[in-house]
């Protein structure tokens, strides 16, 4: 049977046959519950924003007309149900454009006619890859980066991702040197680089890219005449200074840059906490790309039922302003709780002001400064400490010992339980470890390119099929009619 399916269908490009699914497996088979399973695994590997849902719920309850299924809203049912124009409902595009402007403090304007729908940011990334590059071409991506990029950008497109190596010596900031090195390496291997992908705010770092770096990246891409894709999916999760600078602002400030090279990826999954509704957006300054992406959006349009609801919600200025402010506050508080809790036991995390996670520094807990040791520590954290956190290697981090830990997908009590477990673990470990010499180990750039091969050797195929996205404990997964 296998030879009758394509290579794409049978290779590992989807990324799910990796050792990192052990964490999901452990959580899935033993999920934490405060009363039913208080010693279960706590899910801290899912970057979801659940802290401000009560505000959304309140709005939906007070605005029955926004849903075509209510008595108040059902007059719109027919028109919404038959509308399949890939331009999308004008009111939806207008509302999304206005929302994106508000999130950027109204410092920029977005043209609703450049808003193109996609099947979540997952679909948006893939669409842009199809529009901008041919199979065999490459995109440069600063490390560490979101593991889904490998699937989204390369699986069906045939393009490759080349790392721009960043490290902790300067808090993982992207340097011109790193960009030039990556570009040169590609050229030496005869690989055509078509663009640079930035994630701002960053997953997994939780930091924003500063104005200088953004401007420099813009100059770099303009010089090389390559595209600049900015994934701004976490833009409304920025909760403290320095604030968020969007590439849209840099474009505004640099009127002589080549706008045809600039594209933004966005979604409502993180900022509003709606991953189930699949609202992805491609925003491009290039007319041909807008046109092409719009045709491709046929493969992943947003349900008009959802477009209608979102259009209504995001046009409510009072609600939106309140939501953005309140969500930031809650994220800041939760982030503070986690980072302070970690600091109490001497665990540092990268100073961050955005995102739904912390980038935790566990280097001093490693037996040795290797990725094998990181994996070993990770298995202990999952199986003994019972926390599903994500190891830096899964984000292609160049240094072992970093872990991403999510904080916005649980309630306060669960966060406390998690912190208690971390405290206990660190204290225990301090007692056990005697004189383990620390050896700083930086991976050479050559080793980065071999990293996946090494991980493949340790690969374990997840023994049962799982979705990498969903909360496994969702009652909807277990629902029976």
């Amino acid at each position, binding site marked *: 049977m296998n030879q009758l399916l394509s290579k794409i269908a049978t290779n590992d490009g989807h990324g799910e046959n990796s050792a990192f699914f052990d964490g999901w497996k452990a959580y899935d088979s033993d999920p934490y519950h405060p009363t039913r399973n208080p010693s279960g695994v706590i899910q801290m590997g899912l970057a979801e924003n659940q802290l401000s849902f009560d505000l959304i719920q309140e709005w939906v309850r007070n605005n029955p007309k926004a849903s075509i299924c209510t008595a108040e809203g059902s007059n719109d049912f027919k028109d919404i149900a038959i509308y399949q124009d890939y331009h999308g409902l004008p009111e939806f595009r207008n509302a999304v454009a206005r929302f994106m402007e508000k999130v950027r403090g109204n410092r920029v304007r977005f043209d609703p006619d450049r808003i193109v729908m996609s099947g979540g940011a997952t679909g948006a990334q893939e669409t842009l890859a199809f529009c901008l590059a041919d199979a065999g071409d490459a995109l440069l991506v600063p490390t560490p980066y979101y593991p889904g990029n490998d699937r989204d950008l390369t699986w069906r497109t045939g393009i490759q991702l080349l790392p721009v190596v960043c490290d902790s010596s300067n808090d993982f900031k992207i340097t011109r040197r790193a960009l030039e090195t990556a570009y040169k390496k590609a050229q030496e291997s005869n690989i055509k680089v078509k663009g640079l992908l930035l994630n701002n705010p960053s997953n997994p770092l939780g930091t924003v890219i500063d104005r200088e770096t953004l401007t420099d990246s813009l100059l770099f891409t303009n010089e090389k005449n390559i595209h600049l894709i900015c994934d701004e999916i976490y833009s409304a999760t920025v909760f403290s200074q320095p604030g968020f600078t969007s590439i849209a602002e840099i474009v505004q400030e640099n009127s002589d840059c080549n706008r045809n090279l600039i594209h933004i990826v966005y979604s409502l999954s993180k900022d509003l906490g709606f991953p189930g509704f699949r609202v992805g957006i491609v925003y491009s300054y290039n007319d041909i790309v807008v046109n092409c992406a719009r*045709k491709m959006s046929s493969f992943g349009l947003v349900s008009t039922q959802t477009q209608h609801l979102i259009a209504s919600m995001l046009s409510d200025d009072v609600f939106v302003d309140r939501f953005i402010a309140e969500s930031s506050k809650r994220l800041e508080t939760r982030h503070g709780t986690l980072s302070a809790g970690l600091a109490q036991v001497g665990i540092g995390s990268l100073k961050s002001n955005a995102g739904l996670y912390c980038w935790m520094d566990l280097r001093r807990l490693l037996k040795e400064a290797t990725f094998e040791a990181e994996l070993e520590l990770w298995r202990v954290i999952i199986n003994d400490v019972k926390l599903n956190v994500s190891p830096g290697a899964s984000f292609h981090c160049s240094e072992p010992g970093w872990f991403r830990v999510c904080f916005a997908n649980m309630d306060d009590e669960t966060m406390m339980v998690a912190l208690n477990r971390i405290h206990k673990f660190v204290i225990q470990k301090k007692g056990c470890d005697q004189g383990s010499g620390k050896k700083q180990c930086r991976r050479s750039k050559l080793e980065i390119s071999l990293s996946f091969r090494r991980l493949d050797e340790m690969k374990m195929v997840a023994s049962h099929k799982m979705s990498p996205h969903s909360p496994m404990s969702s009652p909807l997964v277990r629902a029976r009619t």
Partner: protein
Amino acid sequence: MLSRKATCKSHGEDSSYFLGWQEYEKNPHDPVRNPSGIIQLGLAENQLSFDLLESWIAKNQEPIGFMKKGGSIFRELALFQDYRGLPAFKKELSEYMAAIRQDKVRFDPNNIVLTAGSTSANEALMFCLAEAGEAFLVPTPYYPGFDRDLKWRTGVEIVPIQSSSVNNFRIIPSALEEAYQHAQKLHLKVKGLFITNPSNPLGTTLSSHELDHLINFAIDKNIHIVSDEIYSGTVFDSPRFISIMEALKKKNLENTTIWSRVHIVSSLSKDFGLPGFRIGMIYSNSETLIAAATKMSSFGLVSSQSQFLLSRILGDKKFTRKYIMENRKRLKSRRKMLVSGLQKYGIRCLENNAGLFCWIDMRCLLSSYTFEAEMELWRRIIFKYGLNISPGSSFHCPEPGWFRICFSNMSEETLDLAVRRIKALVDSSAPNAC
């Protein structure tokens, strides 16, 4: 600077099929505001039974209310992004699929992959079943969207299986073999057959003979069959619809190798008239395919909101049965209205028992038996007579003079007006031409 895909024409939108829509957009008919505008007869949409859905929604506020249990349903849906889909929805969908196939086949919900419309399902199947440069054989005439959905980003080729009006465009074994040989000559490796049953644009269902030929051929060549059954809920007359799965069962081919090489595509866009909600699916007996396609569905998942709503609608079996029957009745009567109107003016329609359209024979109105004359006639029909109907060449029809005309996306009055305009067209042509 951009990819080849972005700059080529493989998106297929320069086809006359889509150009006609553009002309309609510029000058759309409205009975009050623009009575002389172009009537849209090129859009295969089912708008005949919305009142049934609307009244169901009015009566069923409780089960579809998001804000039940303090809004927790809404919250759970908003967070639900599992690519395996809502179990309740897939269960209802599998039962609905069986119901419209008169329960001659059972469907296992675990073998369903949900996709954003059948557009996404068809593309995903191509990614899973073929490499770039390989080919699928597709019977002509076929839906113009396949040029985009099957070929554009996948790099897969379509090799047409020729047909003829002499036998009402039926699929015959020699045509299958010819297409296969043609592919060989072009050095294209054939990976499968791609059929649409019921057919768009013909509106006919495949006979059990045709299904047998197709299955035997696929066994012989060791290739896949993709059966796009998106119009299966629009079968309004006999002969009854036979799904590819039923045909396999009848031949006792369950659990043989061909069993896992047959895949069905469907959607709720045509049956229920809900194209906006983007609810499509792939059904296959191949576990490996299901696994791969499920992962791919990440690029176009179905909104959880829409899954929930449809799980409730389909879960009301009494309503669904009533809807299916009433919908069929209305489609049948609407077709009759169009066909009898056209027949009066000498325009013949292919005998059809399904779909949202008729395949009409306008050869008598051609100035010459050529595709250029077909285009000439088409331009006259749009610009002089204000009707957007779809020319056969856009469906890769091997013979000029055939057009597809849709009948379920407008009011009766508008359809009546369209028929009168066709009369005017016929009257203006050579006397006794038709």
